[in-house]
């Protein structure tokens, strides 16, 4: 890998770390050690790569989106088609890696949280594949807006537990998954779904997602003979973005944008833009930017996209913002919905509402760029799961 962060304590600059109850420390130490051994074991790497190829369907294409390029009228746009992965999103890259790791560690049970349900579906899929028992915590609000994914998880043999605490969204699902893990820590692996949580999770998830950026780098050079001028990805916890950005971090000429959920608009206070508007704090085991009040209570977030509806952000993103390497703008629900429709009409692709945030922001920068310049958008997932919500929204 090209840069050596986090350090041994799991710190990305001052961000990250391991702020968890003592009960979890041995499990995190065990995980860290098992992970280091696994990635240095050619047998593990080969097994993972074989599954990525034959089961997930990688390499995913880097698609020359001529229709979208024309519609936006500026820089040349390419889409990294993570939506074409088995289960329809990038989440499977991480779930597969962690599933193989859990199995190697002798764990028989998996617990996970999910927001939009994409990580839950990926987790349930990998558990079915590898013969692991699966429990997924999901906020009750998210269960309502992503009913189809709940049923998909159940079809795959997972137990989905509704979380009624707090705002009933991703943050609360993480809390419950952590509580469950603390209770059953001896036999259970916590398959966290994003580059968040205590060390070593942000590093593990980033590494398993880096396949996105590694492939993109080779593909764009092959297609255009050069690195892209800009890369855009959506960020909730930030795993597709981190996986896409990481292999390009040393390439200073490549501008990168992590697009946060602006909800009803930053000025309304109803959004999930932790990096644009938050302050530093500690939640879910990590020091990072958070949406919180002046007394350190975590505030409720809002986004049309369940997968971005989270008050924190991966600590590595906080770090990359702090050193001015990556910009973190936001787009509103309305802009994301518009981008959803544009991509559907110009390319025949329904993007996930999460990914639609990246597409929406790409419009802003494409129009300021030259036609010879290139933008890569990480199309992190497909939008089939969002169709009922879009339908309801369009009726309003």
């Amino acid at each position, binding site marked *: 890998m090209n840069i050596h962060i986090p350090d041994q304590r799991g710190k990305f600059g001052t961000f990250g*770390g391991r702020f968890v109850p*003592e*009960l979890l420390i*041995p499990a995190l130490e065990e995980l860290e050690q098992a992970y280091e051994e696994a990635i240095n074991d050619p047998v593990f790497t080969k097994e993972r790569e074989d599954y990525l190829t034959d089961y997930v369907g990688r390499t995913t294409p880097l698609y020359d989106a001529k229709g979208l390029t024309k519609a936006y009228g500026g820089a040349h746009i390419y889409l990294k088609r993570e939506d074409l992965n088995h289960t329809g999103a990038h989440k499977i890259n991480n779930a597969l890696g962690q599933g193989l790791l859990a199995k190697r560690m002798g764990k028989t049970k998996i617990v996970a949280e999910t927001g939009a349900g994409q990580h839950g579906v990926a987790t349930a899929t990998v558990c079915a594949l590898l013969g692991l028992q699966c429990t997924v915590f999901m906020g009750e609000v998210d269960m309502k807006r992503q009913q189809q994914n709940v049923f998909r998880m159940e079809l795959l043999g997972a137990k989905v537990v509704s979380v009624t605490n707090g705002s009933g969204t991703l*943050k609360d699902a993480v809390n419950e998954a*952590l509580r469950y893990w603390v209770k*059953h820590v001896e036999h259970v692996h916590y398959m966290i779904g994003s580059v968040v949580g205590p060390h070593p999770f942000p590093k593990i998830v980033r590494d398993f997602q880096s396949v996105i950026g590694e492939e993109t780098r080779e593909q764009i050079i092959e297609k255009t003979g050069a690195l892209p001028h800009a890369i855009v990805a959506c960020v909730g916890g930030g795993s597709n973005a981190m996986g896409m950005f990481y292999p390009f971090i040393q390439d200073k000429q490549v501008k990168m944008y992590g697009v946060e959920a602006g909800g009803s608009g930053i000025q309304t206070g109803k959004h999930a833009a932790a990096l644009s508007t938050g302050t530093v704090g500690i939640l879910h085991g990590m020091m990072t930017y958070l949406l919180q009040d002046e*007394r350190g*209570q975590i505030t409720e977030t809002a986004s049309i996209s369940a997968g971005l509806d989270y008050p924190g952000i991966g600590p590595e993103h906080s770090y990359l913002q702090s050193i001015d390497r990556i910009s973190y703008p936001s787009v509103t629900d309305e802009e994301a919905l518009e981008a959803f429709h544009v991509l559907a009409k110009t390319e025949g692709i329904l993007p996930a509402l999460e990914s639609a945030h990246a597409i929406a922001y790409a419009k802003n920068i494409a129009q300021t760029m030259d036609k010879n310049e290139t933008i890569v958008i990480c199309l992190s997932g497909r939008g089939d799961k969002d169709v009922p919500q879009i339908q309801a929204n369009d009726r309003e």
Partner: protein
Amino acid sequence: MKSIQHCFEEKINQNKQLFVPYIMAGDGGMDRLEEDLLFLERCGASAIEVGIPFSDPVADGPTIQAAGIRSLEAGTTLDQVFTQLKKSKHKRKIPIILMIYVNVVYVYGIEAFVQSCKESGVQGVIIPDVPFEEEDLVTPALKQGGVEWIRLVALTSSKERINQLTKEAEGFIYAVSDTGTTGVRTEQHKDLYPFLQSVQAASSVPVLVGFGISTGDHVRALRPYCDGVIVGSAIVEWLHEKKYEDIQSLIQATFPT
């Protein structure tokens, strides 16, 4: 002011088991805080753990989560708790220990937090989401302000880890009696007694057991294996339901027989 360890050792020397109740500050209204503290002291508590509500208490089970929500909904802030504790500072004779999640401390400001602890007579601090690895975020300021840092050890802690955590421990060791979150349990974990024996052997400060203790039988059964108990969820529930006599009789289980 006598140190927590000193206060506790006086009780141990009287052949008394230590009893530390936990209450959620602001549950039932901030005005109740002083009243509850003085009531628990009269009942024979050795010290009191005062919980500060947090929106995302991952170490807590349903009872304390619910109390925290009630408290936050009533508008409780850390500053209000400090103000109340300061007012009753000279009426209390037993140590007050804050149980608080790290984000609330961090956002308040660590130096300011220590200063407020000193002014309001808070002698010790427990932060359940700051393990040994992250201690240096808070311990330099606590040390400088003379506020004691209470460490937790868990059933999952290895022998080496127990030695590391008990070395240079302040106040007392909080031994977590089970996996999972806070809350009442009917059965003890099978590894509890050997675990407590190894913690006691390693520790030069008193060892108190918490998580899941709610009956006189629990308290009496633990007597040979520790210096005392911490009772949270049961006390929180009884205070909420105003069942004061249940609290009294539980504390009496710790008196010499």
